[in-house]
């Protein structure tokens, strides 16, 4: 494992932290936080996949200025735009899933008066 792999490994570490939170925590809110961490770790990895180091200088944002003739220059120096678009979509999906899961948690709190999954009938373990 070289140093270049380190960011990817860290993204994985975050992923595992999220998984741990979902599996081990008994509080609904903590489970939701774990879910978010999991989601963001996957997004982070996707962005990292799109990162490219150009031959010289730092990579730039993939915005085309100055017409089509500059496209080749941009392709040589910019990061890959596709994973960024994917991550944006994935964040939107994550937003709606989070809204729904929070609404469910609030309803569950109304029913049971607690966020502790150990006290709910079907959510143990």
């Amino acid at each position, binding site marked *: 494992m070289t140093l270049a792999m380190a960011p990817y490994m860290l993204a994985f570490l975050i992923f595992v932290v999220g998984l741990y939170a979902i599996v081990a925590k008994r509080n609904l809110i903590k489970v939701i936080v774990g879910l978010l961490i999991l989601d963001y770790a996957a997004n982070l990895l996707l962005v990292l996949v799109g990162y490219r180091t150009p031959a010289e200088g730092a990579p730039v*944002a993939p*915005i*085309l*200025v100055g*017409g089509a003739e500059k496209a080749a220059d941009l392709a040589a120096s910019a990061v890959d735009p596709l994973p960024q678009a994917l991550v*944006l979509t994935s964040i*939107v*999906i994550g*937003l*709606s*899933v989070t*809204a*729904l899961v*929070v*609404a469910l948690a*609030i309803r569950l709190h*109304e029913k049971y008066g607690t966020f502790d999954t150990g006290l709910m009938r079907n959510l143990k373990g």
Partner: protein
Amino acid sequence: MQGMSPIVKNMTRLVAGFIVLFGVYIVLYGHMTPGGGFAGGVILAGGLALVVLAFGEEFARKALTHEAAKTADSIGAMLFLLIALLGYAGGVFFTNLLPVGEVGKLFSAGIIAPCNIAIGIKVGAGLFGVFVALAVFRRAGAGSSTGMIEG
């Protein structure tokens, strides 16, 4: 929730319009600058949420209702789908019918700008609806709805 102190209310009066304006700007210029429908819509929803937080539940029930948010949400989505279906007039689903124009001008990029507007409406209304459903009407009407679901 009765609204916050007069200081907050006055500041909100001053600022909210600008926040919403900024959201509209981000939506309209989405095809040229970073941002676009989603980011602008989130800012719009943030501005509206600020108003509701400052002026309280009563205001939300009168002026910025959950129902209105739901309707605007559906309208935004339908607008987007309509743009896509209009592509059939040009032969293919979702094809570009508008002139492409010149890169960097406001009226350019074909259907991307109308799409951004539709997404802006959808996301702004949808996110604000989520906020209202989760924050304001929870205590008032348990059992009124399952919450906003579409994102």
